[in-house]
């Protein structure tokens, strides 16, 4: 039997350590997904907690038609979509004015700026394209799983990915001449 399914069975029979193991196994992945989607660490922390609480409350509804990870991500996607508060974090002028002369530190700052650019680019994408891009690039999920998570067809997932990439290329390409 799949390890995740075994842990779920244990949890359902009253073993709370199984719950801790499932959290340990997936919380970082979920946190990083949420962080990339929302762009804020504190929000990512709160939403990750909410996702796992929802997950364990609904765990009896897990039909095992898809993998546990796919099911977990479908809850994560819905929670992120429903998350109303949306902070926009950007590099402040204060951060930029602190650029020192040292070449190494300058490189670091450029890297930081690049990351910020990607973050802004991702946040500016429509939700469906953003989710598809994050799941595909950072979590390396196949279209089959993404379509289950997003409750859409594989061809829709493919076109969301294609247009997401095109748009991100336009946003980032303007500055970095891709």
């Amino acid at each position: 039997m799949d390890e995740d399914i075994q842990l779920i069975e244990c949890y359902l029979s009253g073993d709370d350590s199984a719950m801790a193991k499932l959290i340990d196994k997936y919380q970082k992945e979920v946190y990083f997904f949420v962080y990339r989607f929302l762009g804020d660490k504190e929000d990512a922390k709160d939403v990750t907690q909410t996702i796992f609480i929802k997950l364990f409350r609904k765990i009896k509804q897990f039909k095992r038609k898809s993998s546990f990870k796919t099911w977990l991500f479908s809850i994560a996607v819905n929670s992120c979509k429903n998350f109303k508060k949306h902070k926009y974090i950007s590099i402040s002028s204060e951060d930029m004015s602190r650029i020192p002369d040292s070449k190494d530190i300058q490189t670091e700052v450029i890297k930081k700026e690049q990351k910020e650019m990607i973050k802004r680019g991702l946040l500016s994408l429509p939700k469906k394209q953003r989710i598809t891009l994050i799941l595909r690039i950072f979590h390396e999920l196949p279209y089959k799983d993404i379509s289950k998570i997003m409750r859409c067809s594989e061809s829709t997932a493919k076109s969301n990915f294609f247009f997401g990439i095109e748009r991100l290329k336009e946003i980032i390409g303007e500055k970095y001449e891709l």
Partner: protein
Amino acid sequence: MNCKTTRKLLADYIIGDVTPLEKAQIDEHLKRCLSCKKKAKEISSLFKMISSYTVEEIESGVFLEIKNNIIKELQTKRRFYLKIWDWLWLKPIRPAFVSLIILTLLFFLAYPSIVNHFSNTNNYSIIISSYIDVDSDEIQDLDKEDIDDILAVILPSYEDIATFLPLDNDLSDLNDSDIDIIYHALLYQDQPTVEHSTML
């Protein structure tokens, strides 16, 4: 493979998620199409940049804090629900418990008509037993038509009284205030005779 199809597959090609046949076709196309080759380079550079977008500087305690909060929240609720669940759904008492719930629900659903039935019967009992020497239990066994007949005999001027009451000759609607009015009207009527009890 033409340019349109190639461009649709370029991102997947760079990730390495295309079939061997598609890969061979794209490789072949890129050899002879400079425009698509340029596109492929752009996407490849974009992916390199994106891959640098790692989530860093997460404080070491964050994940432990998240985990503890989740467990705390879930265990508190779980213990509470488990206690109730265990207590309510012990197998031996399950049928009795379910039956009790159903009976309670039925009682509350039927409550208004039950109360109404008893109160009406009691009203008739009070009127009839105050004029005729019979047990109230016997009166309660009577159906509506009998009661109607008896009251018509006991209260010879019932029709007159009824004109003052919002009864529309339906005695089942008698309430306390109706009875008060009937008693008041009866002060001016003759007492019924004992023979009337033979009707019962």
